[in-house]
């Protein structure tokens, strides 16, 4: 009996130790993606609404990102025949179907799949941080131009101004073919992320926001604003899943 108790105690200790590093679950108070008004420890959350007294919309958790199926009772007056349709607003990574046009678009770097859900809020308004970058551009792209009229008191002041946007590209296919091209054409050493692992591609082998960020729970050992909702305990673990790094060499 004592042995059983000790064993049970050790297991509980081990489990609590495992969960220590991870952040709050989406359903818990403190998770920054829990936008329910009851999430009192987060600044950015819904405020109480009276739209449905028994279960107001602002008390919900999933609804702010995952839209439930529903259309209005009446169809559009100017286009009645299409009243039952739903808009294809989310190409889920858990669905193997995908719109051919959307797939073609991914080749040009437009966000697709689940990344659309992230970027439709992270647009600088609803949430800060428009994180888009040009396809496959890894380093900041400084743009120099003269400012003849704009923004400065006194017209005709020529200044050099740099603007750039940098973020790891998303919504591109990452498969052995791409890895080989990177290796053969660019001399860069990449690898396919080991499976099973936190760093995941979607079902169509596309890297998405969710490859590095778990929107439901931060798995970082030490939470950091530079790696929000990180999918692994250590910062490097996420990068190293795909990038082979050698000392004194810039692998990116």
């Amino acid at each position: 009996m004592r042995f059983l108790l000790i064993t049970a105690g050790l297991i509980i200790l081990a489990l609590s130790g495992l969960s220590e590093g991870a952040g709050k679950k989406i359903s818990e108070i403190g998770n920054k993606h829990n936008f329910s008004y009851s999430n009192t420890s987060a600044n950015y959350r819904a405020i109480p609404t009276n739209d449905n007294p028994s279960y107001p919309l602002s008390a919900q958790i999933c609804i702010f990102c995952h839209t439930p199926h529903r259309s209005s009772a009446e169809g559009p007056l100017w286009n009645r025949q299409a009243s039952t349709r739903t808009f294809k607003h989310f190409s889920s990574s858990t669905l193997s179907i995908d719109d051919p046009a959307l797939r073609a678009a991914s080749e040009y770097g437009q966000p697709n799949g689940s990344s659309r859900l992230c970027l439709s809020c992270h647009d600088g308004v609803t949430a800060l941080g428009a994180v888009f970058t040009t396809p496959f551009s890894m380093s900041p792209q400084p743009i120099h131009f003269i400012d003849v009229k704009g923004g400065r008191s006194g017209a005709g002041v020529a200044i050099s101004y740099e603007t750039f946007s940098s973020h790891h590209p998303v919504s591109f296919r990452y498969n052995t073919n791409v890895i080989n091209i990177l290796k053969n054409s660019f001399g860069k050493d990449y690898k396919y992320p080991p499976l099973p692992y936190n760093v995941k591609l979607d079902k169509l082998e596309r890297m998405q926001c969710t490859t590095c960020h778990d929107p439901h729970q931060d798995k970082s050992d030490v939470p950091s604003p530079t790696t929000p909702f990180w999918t692994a305990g250590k910062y490097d673990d996420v990068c190293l899943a795909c990038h082979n790094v050698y000392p004194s060499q810039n692998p990116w």
Partner: protein
Amino acid sequence: MKLLKVFTGPDEFTAPKGAMSSLFELVTGERPQSVGLMTPAGIVSDGERFIYIADPSARLVHKIDFVDNEVTYITHSGSEPLASPVGVALDSFGNFYVTDSVKAKVYKFNKDSEYLGALGEGVVEFQRPAGIAVGRNDYKYVADVLANKIIVFDNKDRFLREFPNSPEINNLNKPVNVSVDRNGNVYVTDAFNFSVKMFDPSGNLVRTIGTVGDGPGTFARPKGVALDSESHIYIIDANFDNFQIFNQTGQLLLYVGTTGKRPGQFFMPNGIYIDHEDRIYVSDSYNQRLQIFQYLKEKH
């Protein structure tokens, strides 16, 4: 509805290189570059010559001149660089206003793009200004996302009031965009309530349009809102890749757009503006372009 134009950036203009450009090259040895639209957001037009597009990724406002066929850039407010310009509006004098969601300021410039000052400086502490519209009498309406309210300034830029008047009943839940009709009614995109709320000029709630869902008449990511000359209400949805048009009673009339990059299609559109000629300007964010449509009245 007719598509008039698709615009992606200054490369579409083949304007001769100006004197300033040559001087810049001579002094710095650098060749100045133009900037295409990166993630265009808020948009406004004078209906004649200029279109202004706020671009938070490029951290600037594109000022497109369709008479001289050139694009200039508003990058600074005085000596301060813009951080995240998301909204833009024009008053009747050609002054324009830029909301910066990171700096939490609303900047005012004259028609020559000279910086004039910050709206409500010392009086209003913005938290995250985003959508902005100028209504009749040059009243300015600013949607403050984090403050959950609309802040109104008069034609002299003095703080006038804020609403909703009864936030405990008619609350706004992350208002991201705003538009005003000719009668002074205010339409607010209420993002976390997945709807657009219509307020009368005094700030009383008149009507709520739409609810959360994935079919016609509902919203997943409502963004820009605008009105045509017949007071139809146009509402962008970034996830549906369309805009839906409602009448004044909140009935859905039509939706326009599907996912894609062909003309008339959208990839996560954001801002919308309609000028006095019923030209509809849509910032098609992740297609990195502007699309202009024409609303055709029944006589057509």
